[in-house]
């Protein structure tokens, strides 16, 4: 167990953790603000990955315009999703909301399977392939960029929800839906914006993951579970918590991977989470929503 390996595991754990954090944040926003346990977000990340792949393969569009296009589309799709679908399941029973989320997850996963096929796709962007050396520790540029983008995005989101009028309005709607609409806030519009933002979160996560892993449809489910876990660990609805939780999970997975393989690492993670769900559902920082209705 060389020193470099340990440092590398820790560093990549933290970097990946940032990406997990932003993935979880998407779900946290929806569950915390709109109160929908929509654990579909992993699939949205997957679609972001496929989108990027198709974009870079078939068009000459450079990376940066491509990313911006992705974000814009993700946001618009989120708004559309809310107005056409999610708006109508706000008031059905909680269990059925979960069932709906599962149905959406499965439908979108398999749509991806139909369109893109079961074989893994690899996204390669030249300047991201390079490896950075810190002393003797090697890290992929892609990981650093992805993590950087994630952290940047999360910070922007915190600012948005804290400082801007719209952000505060959205938080008001989440605290008290009826009260907010009484004072004149257009709750539907606020929710739509929130969902749009959460989809951009997924897009950022997808963007960060895309150069790092082979892209295949089952990732949708995997990331969905991951997003859930990050959100629950961090406390559903708490954005800072999501980031912290992301780091913790990233580190856990990374360190374990050093000793044994990914499957066992994931298994242990799930087992730990299972235990945690039982004992402290409000999450690490204790600010999350407690037991659902």
């Amino acid at each position, binding site marked *: 167990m060389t020193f470099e390996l340990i440092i590398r595991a820790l560093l990549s754990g933290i970097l990946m953790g940032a990406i997990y954090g932003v993935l979880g944040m998407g779900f946290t926003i929806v569950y915390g603000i709109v109160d929908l346990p929509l654990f579909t977000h992993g699939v949205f990340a997957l679609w972001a990955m496929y989108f990027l792949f198709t974009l870079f393969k078939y068009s000459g569009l450079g990376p940066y315009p491509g990313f911006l296009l992705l974000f814009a589309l993700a946001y618009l799709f989120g708004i559309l999703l809310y107005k056409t679908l999610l708006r109508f399941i706000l008031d059905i029973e909680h269990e059925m909301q979960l069932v709906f989320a599962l149905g959406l997850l*499965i439908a979108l996963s398999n749509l991806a399977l139909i369109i893109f096929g079961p074989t893994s796709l690899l996204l390669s962007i030249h300047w991201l392939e390079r490896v950075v050396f810190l002393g003797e520790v090697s890290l992929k540029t892609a990981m650093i960029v992805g993590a950087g983008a994630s952290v940047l995005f999360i910070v922007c989101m915190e600012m948005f929800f804290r400082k801007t009028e719209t952000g505060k309005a959205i938080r008001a709607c989440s605290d008290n839906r009826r009260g907010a609409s009484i004072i004149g806030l257009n709750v539907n519009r606020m929710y739509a914006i929130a969902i749009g933002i959460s989809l951009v979160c997924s897009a950022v996560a997808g963007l960060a993951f895309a150069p790092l892993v082979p892209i295949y449809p089952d990732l949708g489910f995997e990331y969905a579970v991951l997003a859930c876990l990050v959100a629950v660990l961090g406390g559903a609805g708490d954005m800072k918590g999501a980031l912290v939780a992301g780091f913790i999970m990233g580190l856990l997975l990374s360190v374990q991977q050093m000793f044994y393989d990914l499957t066992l690492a994931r298994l242990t993670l799930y087992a730990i989470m299972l235990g945690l769900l039982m004992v402290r559902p409000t999450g690490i920082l204790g600010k999350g929503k407690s037991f659902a209705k």
Partner: protein
Amino acid sequence: MKRAENTALSGLIGPVAILIVLLVVPFLAGRYLTQVILFGLITAYLCGAWNISAGYGGLLSFGHAAFIGTGAYATAIPLVYYGLPGWLGMLMGGAISAVFGFGLSWTICRFRVKGFYFAVSTILFAEVLGSIATRSRYLGRGMGVPLPSVTNVFTLQFLSVIPYYYMALLLVCAMVLITRHVERSRLGWYLRATRQSEDASSALGIDVTMVKVIAMTLSAFLTGIGGGMYVLALRFCDPYDVFGIMFSTTLMLGTLLGGRGTVYGPIIGIAILTAVKEGLTFTAEALGGMSSFALVLMGWGVILCLVAKFVPNGIGPWVWNRVAKKTLV
């Protein structure tokens, strides 16, 4: 009073007629159709098992595949390695699943894990068990465990599908009877009360925890047996299949579509789903090259969404309400 008697007995005519039809299917239909109905029956049985904890008890577990897989492996491994008879394996699988079900539900009730957290817990539970099966060399790793193709009545191994067909039919009939019995028993009333309002129920003196645990344990036991049946009929035990989210989802979909908390709901639901599945498979093949598997699953995702929003209590009760309104008013 007379009217009620009429309904009770005449209520059996439909199912009995269908039973008679199902009894003769293997002789009239080809191998493929018999096989389709065979697995439909097994799935209907499994839905019925899920129905007990979810439909009646309100414990919608998203990871019942955990019990299917347990039953499957408990049947397959001893059979392949030690020649343990299939039926014994099924019972053993049921028993082990029951223990898991008991542990899971007791922990959940003890810590009052509800709603979303409950759903995620059950998904994780299935994933953990599935990962164990995928990693363990003893359990065949990711390749699964093929069951030998021999004919041995004693161990319930057959080459033809027909014996399995009748076993599955037997299981479904048993499930119907069990569900009816539970529904009318004291446990059934307790379950319904708990599902509607836990607080009111415990105020009335019902031990809510005990009720839920019993329901889940029973459900797990029955599901485990079904898992064993499944691998016997399929002659293959694939961890991604028996522990997979899709199997859990199928159970949910069948029961919710047909009518949760009803006796025949799961069967109706699976009947519809099987028809949809075959129809979509046909369409996918007609359209050439499209993965029928993916199209079917996508269809089910869509159906799940539609059911959640529009008929959360299932098509069975929905139709029944319409029919009852017309005949009684």
